[in-house]
């Protein structure tokens, strides 16, 4: 009679085979990351470091945003507020308190964004889906208007000439190359935090909430608390990206707070692949490269139109994004 029992699919494979496959996959992954890191280390020899730093800042921004959209299923249309808050707080502190370590300035900017994220999160998670997007957009617009009028942001002019300062009082960050390695370290840190979050039990619960919120509730999870934590982590890392960006460009301006910026980060994530680990990185690279390429060319004034077209095409034809598409292709080749 026992022969009638049907074994689950995975159990039919020998355990060793499964284990070997898993190990091979994680080896491939490790090798890929090492190669990527090696490229990042030598990249400033070939490419202008300031451009690379811009890329890394926006990539971190997009990765932080993807944590929310891709893993918690929450579409925030207000992430510009966190980017700008990080930037303004860091910019203000570094300009007004000379001698303050750059690392402390960035830490303060990150914390300020985390606090703002807590406030946004507490309000926005009271509604779901489309309302969530509208509420975050409206709150970010509120923050935008506050920054237009507040005395410490420099209003329409923004904060200029923010000193880059020194790191831990030792490394002089006015050198582009030194700063580049610092920004790379910041990015790797942020990326690692996101990876750790996604692959932790907490990350699994987040995915469960994304897939089926009522079921997650019925299983006894405090859905709101999980969502709120994801929102705060995402806001903090976005603030980290904004603070770092201010140090790089020595500038904090209203551009970062404008809702166009919230739209851009959505585009980066969508184009790269929502819910994929590398998608936002790829998407940010494509969008930032495209923008700087376009702004120098004859199509400079059409940037928003072109971004809008990419948006429409992505939604209509390419919802998996670049990385999602590559993953699909590789699965088809390896497993069938």
């Amino acid at each position: 009679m026992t022969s009638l029992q049907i074994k689950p699919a995975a159990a039919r494979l020998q355990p060793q085979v499964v284990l070997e496959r898993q190990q091979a996959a994680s080896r491939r992954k490790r090798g890929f990351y090492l190669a990527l890191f090696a490229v990042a280390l030598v990249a400033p020899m070939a490419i202008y470091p300031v451009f690379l730093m811009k890329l890394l800042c926006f990539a971190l921004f997009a990765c932080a945003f993807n944590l929310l959209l891709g893993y918690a299923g929450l579409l925030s249309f207000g992430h510009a507020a966190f980017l700008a808050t990080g930037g303004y707080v860091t910019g203000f502190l570094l300009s007004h308190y000379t001698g303050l370590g750059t690392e402390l300035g960035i830490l303060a900017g990150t914390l300020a964004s985390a606090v703002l994220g807590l406030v946004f999160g507490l309000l926005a998670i009271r509604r779901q889906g489309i309302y969530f997007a509208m509420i975050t957009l409206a709150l970010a617009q509120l923050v935008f208007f506050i920054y237009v009028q507040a005395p410490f942001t420099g209003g329409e002019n923004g904060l200029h000439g923010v000193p880059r300062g020194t790191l831990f009082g030792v490394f002089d960050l006015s050198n582009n190359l030194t700063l580049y390695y610092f920004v790379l370290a910041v990015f790797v840190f942020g990326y690692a935090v996101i990876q750790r979050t996604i692959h932790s039990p907490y990350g699994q619960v987040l995915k469960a909430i994304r897939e089926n919120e009522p079921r997650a509730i019925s299983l006894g999870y405090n859905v709101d608390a999980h969502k709120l934590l994801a929102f705060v982590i995402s806001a903090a890392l976005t603030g980290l990206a904004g603070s770092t960006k201010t140090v790089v460009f020595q500038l904090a301006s209203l551009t970062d707070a404008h809702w166009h910026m919230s739209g851009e980060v959505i585009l980066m994530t969508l184009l790269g692949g929502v819910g994929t680990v590398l998608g936002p990185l790829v998407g940010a690279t494509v969008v930032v490269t495209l923008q700087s390429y376009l702004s120098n060319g004859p199509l400079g004034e059409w940037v928003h139109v072109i971004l809008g077209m990419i948006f429409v095409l992505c939604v209509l034809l390419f919802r998996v994004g670049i990385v999602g598409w590559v993953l699909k292709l590789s699965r088809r080749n390896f497993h069938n």
Partner: protein
Amino acid sequence: MTLIFGIPLSVMSGQLLLGLINGAFYALLSLGLAIIFGLLRIINFAHGAQYMLGAFAAVMGLNYLGVNYWAALVLAPLLVGVVGVFIERFLLRRIAGEDHLYGLLLTFGLALILEGSFVKLFGVSGSSYPMPEQLKGGFNLGFMFLPTYRAWVIVAALAVCLLTWFMIERTRLGSYLRAGTENPKLMQAFGINVPLLVTLTYGYGAALAAFAGVLAAPVYSVTPTMGANLLIVVFAVVVIGGMGSIMGAIVTGLAMGLIEGLTKVFYPEASNTVVFLVMVLVLLVRPAGLFGKEA
């Protein structure tokens, strides 16, 4: 001179009138958003761009074809409504079965395209639209001066809002629309052409936005970005009112305009932000919105 809380009555009523006009635009726009949301379940991010298109259609019609204000009031919404029909038929319908957030993103992309092209073609400063002869001048009400055009904006916007309410709540077509909001599959089983209804609904919503745009053309300057910033306030209005009821959208729109006007009198610095602050308050006290059903 009469004073209310230390503010001259004429100043107070002047700002309240301006607020009421803003409120009329909020009402028209949030009404369109609510109707579209009801049937399509998407937030039309292109609503601001469609409002802008309406205003530009009026300006261009006057400059190139000599179309006068009254004709523009009918033709511009028709034109934008047709554009809306095409947008629904060829773009939105393709993603009808997907997550509703994609509708938001698609229309956001459309808004970027429309606004970006108009900025390129007409510059950011925009143009002005002359006030129609018949609506120049005004009435002296004793305590304040009421410009005729401003009175007309309020009357016209309210008339269209109430007409829309009547159509939806009191006619057969409206009953189809309400039933479609509840259960589109069952409607289709009864032999009603739901896809056509959806297309027309989107077109009507877009036309409402364009109508607001034509109304706004003589009082606000016509610029490519005139819709974008207004739309975000309208989103806040929609969150405050909840999208469950047509009357709710109208009343909330007007009320928010009035509150904005009052804020301009007492604390002008907050006049940009007061609607968002009300939204925060409503979210804290009644998350489903003032007229929304508990989700």
